[in-house]
């Protein structure tokens, strides 16, 4: 078990679709932010979920806009 955990952290993961790593990162940001901001603990899951979706949609929209700008306007 210990060697399995060590192996997990010692050898870098083979990352191919790196943009998918945005999803858990945004979830962490949304969870921490809403944990500090929500007045009641029971509000956190829903607020964090809404915040996560908003961040992800916003980031992909910015990415798509920049991609379009790069390919058609530049």
């Amino acid at each position, binding site marked *: 078990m210990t060697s399995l955990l060590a192996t997990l952290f010692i*050898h870098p*993961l083979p*990352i191919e679709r790196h943009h998918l790593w945005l999803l858990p990162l945004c979830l*962490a940001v949304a969870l921490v932010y809403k*944990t500090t901001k929500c007045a*009641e603990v029971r509000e956190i899951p829903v607020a964090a979920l809404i915040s996560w979706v908003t961040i992800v949609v916003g980031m992909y929209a910015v990415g798509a806009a920049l991609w379009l700008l790069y390919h058609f306007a530049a």
Partner: protein
Amino acid sequence: MKQKTTQPPPAVRMVAAGLLAWFLPGAGHLYVGERARGITLLVVIALTFWAGVAAGGVKNTVNPQDRSLWFLGQICAGVHPLIAVVWSRHLTIPEGADPAGWISYGQTEEVGVVYTAIAGMLNVLVIFDVLGRVDRPELSQTRTGPARTPRRASA
């Protein structure tokens, strides 16, 4: 008859909460009595940091020499980057081994570094939050009543 309070002075509590929040993300909230928030922050920040280390490998994800500016963000996560630095110092790549299996490059490296640095920056937010809760018992309890009373408008 007045009861004696056993709590330390507010300034001491604030310093203790801030240091605890830096050293172990979430511990500051546990210290001020915010158990659910503390456990949530402890788990989320630890998972984010170690997911970054797992992605980029412990050998060069937290690297104060080569990435000092990123390290400023990472060190805000307290004990996690300290463990990663000590671990990476004691980890030697075996002779004849392919370094690519131990050191990440390109996008893999970026994912690891960004995850760990963001975990640290999130802890800055957590530290400021816990400092604001130390002497505000109305914020330091899990409330079941109506939402927070609105602040008075400034003149």
